[in-house]
């Protein structure tokens, strides 16, 4: 369970010597095993929130709790999958995995889960965009985190690849039974992937609405065309 309690965060604007408030007493609760999407327009503080949860940025006040324990630094229990390239270019697929895990059985298991076993000796520059993302995912899963944060993970992929990867990702995530937080600006992605969509509103950022997605757990690509799906998309768009 992840809990954000009374998070306030300010940025100092050096040139004007003013403080910009990004969060003001922000609270958020994500239950174990939930797949939650955070949607909001760009600039609404999504990335700051990711950095705070990951432990990269210390909030001005307030705290983050993982299963009741206060988060003080980045750690293996919360892994971020970034929107930009985050693999080590000078290491092969296997070496990228080996850097974070000593267990070859685990490494093989997650490489095969992400269909990368054949490419264990390839360098990242030899992989396609989708394969790179799958490797980031495999690297996250191999350390068995409780919580995975995905910061716009599909941004670098083109449209067709996106839909395919979303489905794959959903499948892998379900198998691994992790708690997942998706951060995105893409409503369709949010509706398709998550159990719950949280809509954020402008500065200081607040939760505008929480929408529970009540589709069956076995989402398939075809649900994108159903009336319910389209209705939900529209509803969220209006809220934003």
């Amino acid at each position, binding site marked *: 369970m992840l809990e954000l309690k009374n998070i306030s965060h300010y940025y100092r604007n050096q040139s004007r010597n003013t403080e910009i408030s990004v969060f003001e007493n922000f609270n958020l609760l994500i239950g174990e095993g939930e797949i939650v999407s955070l949607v909001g327009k760009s600039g609404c503080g999504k990335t700051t929130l990711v950095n705070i949860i990951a432990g990269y940025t210390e909030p001005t006040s307030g705290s983050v709790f993982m299963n009741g324990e206060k988060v003080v630094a*980045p750690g293996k229990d919360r892994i971020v999958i970034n929107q930009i390239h*985050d693999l*080590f*270019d*000078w290491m092969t697929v296997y070496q990228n995995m080996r*850097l*974070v895990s000593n267990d070859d059985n685990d490494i093989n298991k997650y490489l095969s889960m992400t269909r990368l076993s054949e490419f264990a000796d390839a360098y990242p*520059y030899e992989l396609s965009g989708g394969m790179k993302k799958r490797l980031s995912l495999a690297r996250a899963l191999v350390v068995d985190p409780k919580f995975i944060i995905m910061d716009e993970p599909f941004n670098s992929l083109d449209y067709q690849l996106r839909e395919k990867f979303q489905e794959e990702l959903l499948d892998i995530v379900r198998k691994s039974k992790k708690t997942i937080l998706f951060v995105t600006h893409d409503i369709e992605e949010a509706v398709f992937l998550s159990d719950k969509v949280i809509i954020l509103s402008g500065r200081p950022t607040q939760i505008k609405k929480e929408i529970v997605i009540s589709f069956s757990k076995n989402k398939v690509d075809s649900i994108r065309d159903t009336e319910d799906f389209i209705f939900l998309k529209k509803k969220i768009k209006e809220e934003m």
Partner: protein
Amino acid sequence: MIIIKMQNILKKLIVLVVILFLWQLLSSSIHTIIPSPIEVFTALYNLSVQGDIFIHIFASLKRVVVGFLIATFLGVGLALITGYYKKIDVFLKPLVEFLRPIPPIAWIPIAILIFGLGDMSAYFIVFIGAFFPIFTNSFFGVSSLPVIYENIAHSFEIKNFIFVKDILFKFSLPYIFTGLKIGIGMAWMSVIAAELIGAQSGLGYFIQLNRLLLRTDNVIAGMILIGFIGYMLSLLLLTVEKIIIPWSIKK
């Protein structure tokens, strides 16, 4: 492909012929100073048959290798330390920027005073010549490590030593090699300069000695050797680079 290659070879040959022609022309007009190409190549041939020149080449190479290796270890090591403990940067950067513009030749008098004539001063001068390009390029590499890699290292709780060895160092390797390639050129130039003034052997000493003996054919032969060996040293580093960092070349 083959035609393009042939054309390239032809272009190089034309350049060579033009240079030799101009050289010959120059030498025919002021022959007392400039020997003809044939005389120089004869000198080169005689020197290699006689064998003494190899002692000089070896002496220069030894000084370059020793000085260059020390510069590499200290330059890269210091860059990694400064990159890791970012606070040192504030103290180190001004010192480096102050020392960097002083050419290696300007260190020769003080080197001779401290180390005397001989290998030690030459090592020192070569070190000075190679250190700054190696350090500044390595430092640039180390300090341009993307924040995302640091974040990942923190999230995955990667140990400090592994971080420096496998992430910071490996990321910086392409930059380090840029430094090494400039550094080896500087090292080679510095050793010749050092030998012109304060040594009893080496290619620098060899051309200086032959100037005194008025053997300009040997002087120019020595210069050709300096150019050729310098070129070979760069090629050697380029080959090593291609083997060590394939991800950088192929990217």
